[in-house]
């Protein structure tokens, strides 16, 4: 078998330039690297009349007249492959074959070598990258495809037929033989599909496509002749290959959800990343937060005045995060709660915890749904209405009152488009002078504010109750907390609205105006990269490459079925992306992110079987930076979240590089200490509560350790420090502890020798020490 030089294309550098018609041919709108799907392109577009290669065309057609299946079979036979031992399982490709179009004359180039693809992208501006054409099969079992360079037009010819190859070598000096390139599927392998060959009647270029519609469209142009089946392609491989190790599975789990259990690691290995993830998107959700509050008695008007309390919010939030079965959905909802931020501190209505529960339930319900629906549900929920003042917002009047601008501004700045116009890869656009380009002006804010007038809480299904326990105040029942705000037409501004190039005519009905406005925001090209980048930051890495953002944004823009804003597809793209999955991230000094403190707590609890013995889950606000986590779910200090996506930690190597590390905004001399002290405490004793038997808060009384980790799976191996540390290293940080750190921890643990028959007290001391050391290590704190 001929060995291809890695950079064959480089070697034949003179051919394309000699052949290129080149003059003044502008690159098409599709720049290399945008990953345009092949089928979206019209083959031959931009093809100039060129040297007719009648001889080759005729020959090739003749050689393949009875179908290239022959050619492929021929290749297999003469290639001496062990054809008799092929598996009959559905054949899955090992890697993509990439397609490039030569912009100047419409010839095509295919390569299965990712390095060569990158080289062409970098050094050959005349070749436009058109994405994955089809898939390679393993060289050992597949059929080799031979490549010829056309010295006249700079295009390429491929064949899987040895006969045809030899014929071309003998008769066509203008086609330089470049050896075998990628391999394709055996024609009789299971689950394979044909790749069609077309010849350009004008310039002798060849197009290979696995899309019958593309083939037909090409023929319909009259410029291309179908030449039948060239060879066969295996089906697409799982996006990031198989899951080979427990560490890989754990790494994925810790990005996709909070924790990794033995059974989950096994399930990911068995089902693959995508298979497991898709299953989780459809998994049953646990009890909803609003229902849990009701089930715990928090929706009743009694002496505890729950309607006026924030602490039930903490309890339901922790219960949802620590105890619910659907970890993926809750993890994504938590990430969304840091984007569409509402904090219970800023919700002033009665039954504010029920209002917050509905907000949370909306995030959970839409986490794998539609961004557009989520945007509308969030806009109209009472929690956001309270937080950013859409509730009670009124039209302008003659005495100078103007609509409240808060939501109009933040829905643009924070929830959809951001401050600056973005390229599709999330980098900022620049004007001719090199300045960033703002997305909106104060006038856009003032205009959009009119759309959000006329909304208020919908008490229509509630009754008033007299609160005998609190000065006889009247309090509505709780139905309104589950309803979207109602629209009150005479409070709505009827002025014309002009914002971001969209106009809404004067006196447009409120619902229509809202739909138009949210559609305009949703369809703004910034949303995909703006939202996608921040979700990558929450789940995977603080500094995603523009290409990664671009891939995720492309999925936001179109999930492959023409749907925009499909969050399931977006999160799948984030988690399955090569940049998230590649082992390169394990060694790059800038990859990853600081684990958020609240997620560390949830991970610890879920990893080691924490439950609330009483079922009351009375874990409160953990915001205190000196004694807790400097962070607590649904308690951001402002709508700008606990940290900003662009936060660059000053006075660090990151500042020199200009690299954001958002979570560092809550890393300080105080918070590092507060975290360590609390983890040391709770890892051994559990979480202390006053009187867990009752749902309400109790000021005094003894500490009861109602929420404790069981360490059920760690106790049996506690006597084996090495095994214990390996296990914690896997569950807590996907095996990312260095051997030096493992040794340091093991040695410290072994300083207090114990045996398998030692008491549980002694074993729990060791386990808690091991947990503390792992969770204190920088290798754990930075998730990679």
């Amino acid at each position, binding site marked *: 078998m001929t060995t291809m030089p890695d950079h064959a294309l480089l070697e034949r550098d003179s051919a394309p330039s000699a052949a290129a018609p080149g003059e003044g041919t502008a690159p098409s709108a599709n720049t290399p690297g945008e990953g345009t799907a092949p089928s979206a392109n019209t083959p031959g577009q931009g093809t100039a009349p060129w040297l007719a290669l009648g001889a080759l065309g005729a020959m090739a057609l003749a050689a393949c007249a009875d179908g290239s299946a022959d050619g492929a079979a021929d290749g297999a036979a003469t290639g001496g492959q062990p054809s008799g031992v092929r598996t009959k399982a559905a054949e899955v490709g090992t890697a993509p074959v990439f397609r490039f179009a030569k912009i100047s004359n419409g010839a095509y180039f295919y390569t299965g070598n990712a390095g060569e693809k990158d080289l062409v992208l970098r050094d050959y501006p005349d070749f436009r990258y058109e994405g994955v054409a089809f898939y390679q099969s393993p060289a050992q079992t597949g059929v080799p495809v031979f490549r010829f360079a056309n010295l006249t037009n700079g295009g390429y010819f491929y064949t899987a037929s040895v006969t045809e190859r030899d014929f071309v070598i003998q008769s066509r000096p203008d086609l330089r033989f470049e050896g075998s390139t990628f391999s394709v599927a055996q024609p009789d392998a299971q689950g394979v599909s044909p790749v069609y060959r077309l010849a350009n009647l004008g310039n002798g270029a060849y197009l290979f496509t696995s899309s019958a519609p593309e083939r037909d469209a090409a023929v319909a142009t009259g410029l291309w002749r179908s030449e039948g089946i060239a060879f066969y392609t295996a089906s697409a491989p799982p996006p990031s290959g198989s899951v080979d190790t427990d560490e890989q599975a754990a790494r994925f789990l810790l990005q996709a959800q909070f924790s990794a259990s033995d059974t989950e690691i096994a399930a990911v290995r068995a089902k693959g990343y995508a298979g497991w993830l898709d299953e989780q998107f459809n998994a049953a959700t646990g009890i909803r937060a609003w229902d849990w509050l009701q089930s715990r008695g928090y929706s009743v008007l009694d002496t505890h005045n729950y309607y006026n309390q924030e602490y039930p919010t903490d309890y339901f939030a922790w219960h949802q995060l620590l105890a619910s079965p659907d970890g993926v959905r809750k993890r994504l909802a938590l990430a969304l709660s840091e984007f569409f931020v509402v904090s219970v501190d800023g919700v002033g209505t009665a039954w504010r915890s029920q209002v917050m529960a509905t907000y949370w339930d909306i995030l959970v319900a839409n986490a794998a749904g539609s961004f557009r629906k989520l945007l509308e549900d969030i806009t109209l929920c009472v929690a956001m209405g309270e937080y950013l003042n859409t509730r009670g917002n009124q039209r302008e009047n003659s005495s100078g009152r*103007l609509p409240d601008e808060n939501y109009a501004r933040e829905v643009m700045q924070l929830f959809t488009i951001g401050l600056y116009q973005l390229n599709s890869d999330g980098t900022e656009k620049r004007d001719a002078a090199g300045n960033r380009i703002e997305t909106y002006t104060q006038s856009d804010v003032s205009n959009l504010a009119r759309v959000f007038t006329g909304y208020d809480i919908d008490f229509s299904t509630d009754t008033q109750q007299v609160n005998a326990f609190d000065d006889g105040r009247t309090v509505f029942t709780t139905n309104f907390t589950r309803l979207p705000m109602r629209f009150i037409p005479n409070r709505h501004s009827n002025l014309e609205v002009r914002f971001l190039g969209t106009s809404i005519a004067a006196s447009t009905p409120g619902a229509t105006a809202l739909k138009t406005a949210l559609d305009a925001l949703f369809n703004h090209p910034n949303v995909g990269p703006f939202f996608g980048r921040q979700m990558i930051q929450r789940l995977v890495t603080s500094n995603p490459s523009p290409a990664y953002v671009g891939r995720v944004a492309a999925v936001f823009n179109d999930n492959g079925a023409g749907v925009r804003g499909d969050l399931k597809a977006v999160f799948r793209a984030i988690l399955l992306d090569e940049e998230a999955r590649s082992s390169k991230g394990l060694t790059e000094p800038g990859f990853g*992110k600081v684990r958020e403190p609240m997620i560390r707590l949830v991970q610890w609890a879920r990893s080691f079987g924490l439950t609330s013995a009483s079922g009351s889950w009375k874990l409160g606000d953990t915001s205190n930076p000196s004694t807790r986590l400097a962070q607590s779910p649904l308690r951001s200090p402002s709508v700008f979240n606990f940290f900003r996506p662009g936060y660059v930690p*000053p006075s660090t190597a990151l500042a020199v590089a200009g690299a954001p590390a958002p979570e560092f905004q809550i*890393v300080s*001399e105080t918070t590092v200490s507060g975290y360590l002290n609390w983890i040391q405490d709770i890892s051994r004793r559990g979480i202390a509560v006053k009187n867990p038997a009752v749902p309400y808060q109790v000021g005094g009384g003894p500490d009861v350790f109602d929420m404790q980790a069981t360490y059920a799976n760690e106790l049996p191996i506690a006597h084996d420090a090495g095994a214990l540390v390996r296990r914690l290293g896997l569950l807590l940080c996907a095996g990312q502890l260095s051997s030096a750190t493992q040794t340091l921890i093991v040695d410290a643990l072994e300083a207090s020798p114990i045996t398998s028959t030692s008491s549980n007290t002694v074993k729990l001391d060791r386990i808690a020490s091991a947990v*503390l050391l792992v969770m204190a290590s*920088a290798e754990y704190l930075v998730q990679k």
Partner: protein
Amino acid sequence: MHLIRPQLHDRRAFLRRSSQLAMTGAALPIALNLSAIGQAAAFSATDYKALVCVFLYGGSDYANSVVTYDSPSYDLYSTIRGGGAGQAAGGIALGRADLAATLLTPGAALPGGRQYALHPSMTGLAGLFNSGKAAVLLNVGPLVVPLTKAQYNSPDRKLYPLPPKLFSHNDQQSVWQSSSPEGSTVGWGGNLGDLAMASNGNSLFTCISATGNSVFLVGDSALQYQVGTTGAVPINGVKAAVNGSVAVKNALTTLIQQSRPHTLENEYNRVTQRSIAAEAQITSALAGVSLATVFPSGNSLADQLKIVARLIAARNTLGSRRQVFLVSLGGFDLHDNLIAQQPGLLSGVSAAMTAFYNATLEMGLADKVTSFTTSDFGRTLSSNGDGSDHGWGGHHLIVGGAVKGKAFYGTPPPVSISDTSSPNDQWHVGQGRLLPSTAVDQYAATLARWFGVSDTEMAGVLPNIGHFGAAGGRADYPTDLGFLA
């Protein structure tokens, strides 16, 4: 051409500043180092001085904090804010009679009979003003260059540049603190720290935040040290055996401070290293402090100012001579419930700052400690029914024994929301969003000069200061506003 010059806030700027120092003739060692610069500059003083920035997060409503009081101006205010008949409260307007107790009585009356009162809940600060220990700076906000309304409306942004991202919370916070929008990594408090740190026994204690991380206190070299309201937080696991094991304690101590090849890991451990080293010093120094001044309880700003006062009290033990502190209070973004929420917030500010002043008096340092308020932005003068929206300029307070108090600085803005060519409509850019007549840079430069920054050093601290003052051809926008002795 006028440009914002955030590039001055980077390491090259440090070198540039150094060369500026060199041009003044100060002897510099060949191997440039900060302590040498500090000693060569004005900070060789042996006395103590501190600046305390009180940041009111959310954008404080200027119109109800420093309230226009003379009858004609009050009537305009009341009409715009929906006040009641007979100068009574109504809408989001405060009642005039309620302001009498907090009326500010400057030594020299303002022109045109203008008068102001503080919000009725701000009795402590009104008292400090009237006793000469506090001043009010009117209509201050970020400016790149002095601007008229016509210039603001001009399309020529090269000649008349605007501060970036006006009206946006996070960006305007950053602009106030660093002259640049979010993402900036060096602030003017930190730049003061760069110059001051060599004066201090432990340079880490130059820039101290008693609230969260923010860009204000970060310099080219000066770090922001964060302290809890009860002092530095010790890490229990490095102080005593962990779960009965000294070996675990020792391993923890190593693990959390070791240098790492991974950038994020290494920076995290650097913070922990600092935490451990500083805690030992702070805890020991604070142990010797006793302050009799009572700070109000249940007041988070007071809690922060109390630890600041205690750290100042420990200055000799810590070897501190020049310090910059940051404290903050949130909740000022009152689009709604302005009338209901302001009393709690502003009485908290007033009580906390008053107690802090009293603590400096107790320490005999009243004229060595200056505190001053800042905020994201002022708000609209117009009402949205129940509150006000994001604005630009606002009024701020400076408190301390060195303050030339019982006085207003800056220019009283006309009370107006209308948009005509009348002179009264030239100092707002719509809905009473004030066009600042004094720049944050002028405010900061005045504080910096008192702190010890020389004219030649000023551009390194405040990159845009050259656009103001006589040297910038704008004597009408002086770089020393004169409110500090």
